[in-house]
């Protein structure tokens, strides 16, 4: 048997006092898809950065095809055949696909500082062919769909290796932003990649990891805590290894779901809300302590409705009544003053101020009375919330951008729930891209808020989440409400298939 394509032997990586990777040994054979799972902070990203040539191990060895190698820099790792497709897309939208594919390693497509277009496009077409992508090399990258762009990234990862090297493609959370049908396309492409090389597949979604991979490694606290072949593993197994305990008990904290009082004055009452070309006749009530899940596919108009309620987008007709008071001023600032909070889906873009400290982020919306923000006061408040929400690290003077996704989201939420007069919380994909532990913490927080009598409008990441968290579920399709499941008890909730029927 030939030497495995990649072998990590007892690799250790420390950052100061913390050990990010502790004696990790992983083997990836030729023509194999290896899954890698673990919570945020388990060491996955450190491992990926090491493979990408961004970190050097402090101890242990990395072997490629049996030879010890030093992955000194991204360019070096790429030449050796390791291509990492990062979670955030790294294509330049304003360039053509071919230029993006060969950026930085154009080879003979450049002569005397000028591009030879035909060669460039031929080389790009070749790279695209290896992942069976039908994208034209001459098209502008921003015109591609998200899924197509991801394929281009995979193609780039494959294309940058030195000839003769089998590719090892590392996919970091590739499915977190893909639609169901695109996931199927990705699966085909991963299988095609397996024919020529190997793939390391990192995902939060255990079902997908099992579906894509031949073998799965589980990381926890920087150590490999388990290795299973996909045939012999179940999601429950993996979950247990990953979290270190059983999963089944009340993931959505349903035991704490209290029925909302049908006679109470609704926190939010939306009547016949319409916007031309987007949605029409949308009506619903949210009572104190009630979670209302709004589900629908892209284009159903649910995002627009939620943003209209927050005043971030205009609407043409209909009324929005908060606590019996009709809302007049339609701006985000007015919405905040009347007690509406909005946690956007694009956390990095709209949900946080990177570069500012955690404390500053938490105190952003409600800095306290008067025009003066006392840093000392801010620290005290931020510290309290960091503890209540278990934001790690506890250091509220840390830069927000350095926190992991789950902790960023907690800090972003803390900023809103700080307010005593919070009435309505609009959550747009609040758990997108978070690991299971962080999700559980957030679900607990949402239940806490319900007990305070706050209403929640939830645009869930998955149907399960919408059903698990919500008292009522409203289904939208093409801008219309197609189904309502109102104020259901915990055991009377709709089944996913019932919602799907109305969504499609």
């Amino acid at each position, binding site marked *: 048997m030939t030497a495995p394509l990649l072998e990590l032997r007892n690799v250790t990586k420390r950052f100061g006092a913390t050990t990010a990777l502790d004696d990790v040994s992983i083997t990836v054979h030729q023509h194999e898809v290896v899954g890698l799972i673990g919570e945020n902070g388990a060491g996955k990203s450190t491992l990926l950065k090491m493979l990408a040539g961004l970190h050097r191990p402090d101890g242990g060895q990395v072997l490629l095809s049996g030879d010890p190698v030093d992955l000194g820099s*991204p360019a070096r790792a790429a030449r050796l055949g390791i291509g990492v497709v990062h979670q955030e897309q790294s294509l330049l939208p*304003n360039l053509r696909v071919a230029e993006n594919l060969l950026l930085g390693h154009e080879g003979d497509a450049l002569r005397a500082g000028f591009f030879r277009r035909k060669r460039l496009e031929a080389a790009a077409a070749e790279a695209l062919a290896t992942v069976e992508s039908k994208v034209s090399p001459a098209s502008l990258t921003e015109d591609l769909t998200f899924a197509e762009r991801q394929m281009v990234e995979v193609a780039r990862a494959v294309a940058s290796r030195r000839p003769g090297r089998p590719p090892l493609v590392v996919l970091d959370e590739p499915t977190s932003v893909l639609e169901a049908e695109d996931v199927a396309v990705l699966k085909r492409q991963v299988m095609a990649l397996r024919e020529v090389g190997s793939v390391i597949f990192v995902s939060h979604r255990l079902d997908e990891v099992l579906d894509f991979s031949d073998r799965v490694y589980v990381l926890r606290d920087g150590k490999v805590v388990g290795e299973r072949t996909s045939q012999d593993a179940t999601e429950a197994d993996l979950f247990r290894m990953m979290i270190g305990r059983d999963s089944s008990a009340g993931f959505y904290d349903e035991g704490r779901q209290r029925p909302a009082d049908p006679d109470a004055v609704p926190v939010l009452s939306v009547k016949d809300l319409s916007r031309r070309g987007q949605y029409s006749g949308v009506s619903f009530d949210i009572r104190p302590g009630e979670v209302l899940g709004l589900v629908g596919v892209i284009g159903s108009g649910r995002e627009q409705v939620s943003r209209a309620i927050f005043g971030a987008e205009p609407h043409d007709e209909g009324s929005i009544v908060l606590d019996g008071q009709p809302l007049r001023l339609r701006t985000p600032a007015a919405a905040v003053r009347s007690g509406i909070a909005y946690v956007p889906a694009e956390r990095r873009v709209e949900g946080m101020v990177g570069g500012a400290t955690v404390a500053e982020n938490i105190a952003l919306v409600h800095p306290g009375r008067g025009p003066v923000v006392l840093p000392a006061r801010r620290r005290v408040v931020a510290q309290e919330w960091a503890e209540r929400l278990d934001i790690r690290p506890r250091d509220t003077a840390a830069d927000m951008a350095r926190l992991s996704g789950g902790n960023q989201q907690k800090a972003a939420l803390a900023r809103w729930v700080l307010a005593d007069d919070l009435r309505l919380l609009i959550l747009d994909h609040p758990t997108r891209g978070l690991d299971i532990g962080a999700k559980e913490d957030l679900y607990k927080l949402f239940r806490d808020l319900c007990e305070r009598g706050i209403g929640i409008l939830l645009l869930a990441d998955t149907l399960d989440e919408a059903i698990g968290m919500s008292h009522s579920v409203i289904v939208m399709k093409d801008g219309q409400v197609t189904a309502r499941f109102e104020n259901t008890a915990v055991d009377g909730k709709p089944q996913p298939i019932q919602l799907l029927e109305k969504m499609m």
Partner: protein
Amino acid sequence: MSATPVHDVATLEQQSTVSRPKNNRRLLLSAGPAVALVVLAVAFAVLTPGFATVNNARAIVEQASIPLVLAMGSTLVVLLGSVDLSVEGVMAACGLTFVLLASNNRNDNDLGWLAFVIAIGVGAVFGVVNGLIHTRIRVPSFMVTLGTWFIGLGMATVLFGTTTPQLQDQTFRAWAGGRWLGVPVVIVFAALVTVGAFVVCRYSKLGRYTYAIGGDEAVSRVAGIPVNRFKVIVFCLAGALSGLGGVLATIRLGVGDVSVGSGQLFLTLSAVVLGGTLLSGGRGGPLHTLVGVLILVVLGNGLLLSGANPYVQQAAQGLVIVIAVIATGWPVRDRLRVVK
């Protein structure tokens, strides 16, 4: 419900990249300014006698020449996502350097063509200094070039001394009204620079990397592009073109003048923006800028011919720019969008 909560029945992900508004925007960025130019020209042709004549067309092209040379450099810098405010200072410094090195009434220098080349070289050095301070010491290009603007003016004032230096080199003086192949010399320069900038932006590594850096600097760095080196090169080119503009303007005047570039910064930067090159970088290009320069020159020329008050002309130019910027931003209006 299933006992394994991480199981997804369906994903409801929202794609943040809907392509339609982007297409609209791109169309508006590329076709909008051209349409505006045509509308403007037709309007003046109908309303103002004397606008639609061959002589006036020639005058417009000649007026546009020096701004075009300057604006091409500015375009490259803006495509990077930076800005070069030093245009007027560099023009003045280079113009005076040129006069004092060529045959003049102040000293015995008579370097001829070498004076022309050295003066442009001075502009290139200004550009390199801009680029180095911006990239190595990490000062925003806005602040660096604001500084070098006044360094250039100061240097020009020192060179100017007490009496106005006059250009006496007959070759260059003949250029002022001269023609090459029937085309005024200054137009030849403008055409060469415009075509050169177009080719560089479209086909060269330098040009494409400039777009890449303007698109996303961090991504470009990770892809292995030596971002700083390319930035310095682009600033150097822009400085050299400012120098060329200063020298051409000086030849036309026949004397060295500190205020030779006065008003050119407003004209070039607004032409770049009007043409549809985004200040955030990565989008637009030389052809956009060509249209932008023509719009401003046609507007000025048309208003002059129609006998409008010069102050009204200035206000009209400002108004056109604001309208153009509103129009290019129209499809991406969103109340949560941040405007800086």
